[in-house]
């Protein structure tokens, strides 16, 4: 097992450019995750149209100083395409007599929230259930990149298959489990180390990251295990490295967005929503969210265990599949 690990490392060092580029990209994506999280996100961007100075009442002044909304005052209503692009969530037009008119392309919830804020601007506090905190956001943003990295480093296994080196491994006395486990350890280490290093540096620089370092180490480790298991699982089904790569990137992108890693979809109690819970990413992000907010329940702990179980299943399938393909009976 250690030989495989050592060998992978030497092969990686042979391609220094590849190593540098992948580590640089990892750092970029995680820095992006931290930067995006640390800029404050408001409940909504609102364009307040005040055509007439006399309409500039105390209500509009109070509303625009609300901490929950980012209100930009303007004389002319913004373009509709700005609304479609989510530049503004709603346009509030103030009239001279103090009444107002709300236009939004978003759902009624958005409208209700703005009406609530306009009716009593002083005491308005929006519901915070759906909001995530810093740690959850960072984990959510970097999830996709961490998972894709698994495919990055699984390529030595893929190359073994592509160039038929694996057939020689079969004839050697090493057990298949150990051979794959060696690859797995290598991938795991290569994902974990740079990712955690960036978080560590962020912590030292004093950036707010939410969790403690130990928790981060644990969470990133679990995510890396999932990434590793999935990469090996996928590669065990294809003999060409690029096919596995392309399918893997596509699946990871689609499922991670579906799992709501960037923002959670609001649809409730539909069949699709229940199906989404099958995705390990969804369970993982749920667990992280609950952990940060401090309401862990038995159900959520089960979801966390599910992530580990599914990783184990991926790994086992990878072992069995390669065994069936290459060991003669």
């Amino acid at each position: 097992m250690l030989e495989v690990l050592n060998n992978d490392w030497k092969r990686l060092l042979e391609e220094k450019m590849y190593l540098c580029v992948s580590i640089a990209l990892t750092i970029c994506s995680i820095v992006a995750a931290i930067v995006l999280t640390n800029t404050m996100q408001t409940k909504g961007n609102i364009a307040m149209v005040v055509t007439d100075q006399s309409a500039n009442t105390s209500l509009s002044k109070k509303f625009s100083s609300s901490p929950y909304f980012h209100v930009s005052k303007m004389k002319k209503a913004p373009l509709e395409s700005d609304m479609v692009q989510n530049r503004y969530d709603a346009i509030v037009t103030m009239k001279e007599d103090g009444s107002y008119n709300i236009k939004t392309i978003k759902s009624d919830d958005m409208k209700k929230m703005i009406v609530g804020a306009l009716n009593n601007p002083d005491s308005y506090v929006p519901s915070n259930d759906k909001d995530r905190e810093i740690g959850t956001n960072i984990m959510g943003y970097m999830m996709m990149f961490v998972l894709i990295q698994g495919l990055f480093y699984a390529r030595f296994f893929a190359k073994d298959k592509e160039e038929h080196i694996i057939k020689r491994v079969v004839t050697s006395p090493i057990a298949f489990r150990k051979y794959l486990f060696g690859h797995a350890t290598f991938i795991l280490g290569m994902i974990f180390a740079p990712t955690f290093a960036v978080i560590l540096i962020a912590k030292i620089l004093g950036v707010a990251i939410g969790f403690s370092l130990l928790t981060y180490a644990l969470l990133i480790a679990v995510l890396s295990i999932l990434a590793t298991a999935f990469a090996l699982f996928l590669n065990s089904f294809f003999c060409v490295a690029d096919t596995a790569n392309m399918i893997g990137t596509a699946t990871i992108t689609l499922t991670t967005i579906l799992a709501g890693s960037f923002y959670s979809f609001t649809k409730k109690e539909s069949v699709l929503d229940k199906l989404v819970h099958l995705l390990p990413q969804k369970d993982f992000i749920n667990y992280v969210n609950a952990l940060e907010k401090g309401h862990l329940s038995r159900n959520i702990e089960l979801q966390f265990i599910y992530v580990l179980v599914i990783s184990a299943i991926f790994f086992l399938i990878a072992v069995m599949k390669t065994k069936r393909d290459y060991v003669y009976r």
Partner: protein
Amino acid sequence: MRNLYLITKEDLKNLVKNPMWVFYGAVFPFLFVTILGFLGKDGYGKEVTSFDYYGITLMIYSILSSGMTSANAFMEVTIQKPNMRIVYAPGSEKNIYLSKIIASFLFTFGCHLIDLMLLCGIYHMRIHAIPQILILFALTEIFSVALGVMFCCIFKTEAMANQILGVVINLLAIFGGLLFSLDGYGKVIRTISYISPAKWLVKATFGLIYDHDYSWFYPTAIGMVFAIIVVVAICNKTFRKEDCIC
């Protein structure tokens, strides 16, 4: 010219025959829009549906991802030996990468056109100024396809080009606000997002559809043409026929 035509024809055949690429080019974008559209339905009202939004943004995302297809078409294992033959054959070796760019462009653009038609037909996606949008999308398609080939020329191996391309495309998409909107993040991020060509595209396209506004169309189109020239020039500079010998 005739050589280029013949090689392109063969490359195109090679692309169409592979079921995985047909899936990635045609089925995957449609699936992506459908699933996200259904999930995001509740967040939108009646005037503009979630399909109107995701249809455009995710199609742009798919168009940017078509670099993966061209990288595959260029340096896939089965295509390496035919490439080597072309190196030894009389004629210009530039045909090797030019034909890949043209063939993958024709293939992916065809796939995406079918997707767009399906989206308009099934989900009644709102669209306007169709010729201009198609010009914009076609230019972007050429750009991303050439980008895929460029990465292959620089890194010499397809696996590496593909993996790096995957991350680069995702970063461009996130900073362009394709996967989720960045406009809630304040002014700094909003300014940063203009670095990504995806942002220009989204802005130009939505401007054309909802405001009949052409002011972003011309700069974006000219910028894309410029980017294509740069990318092809880099391909020309970094492509060495020795790399095709296996």
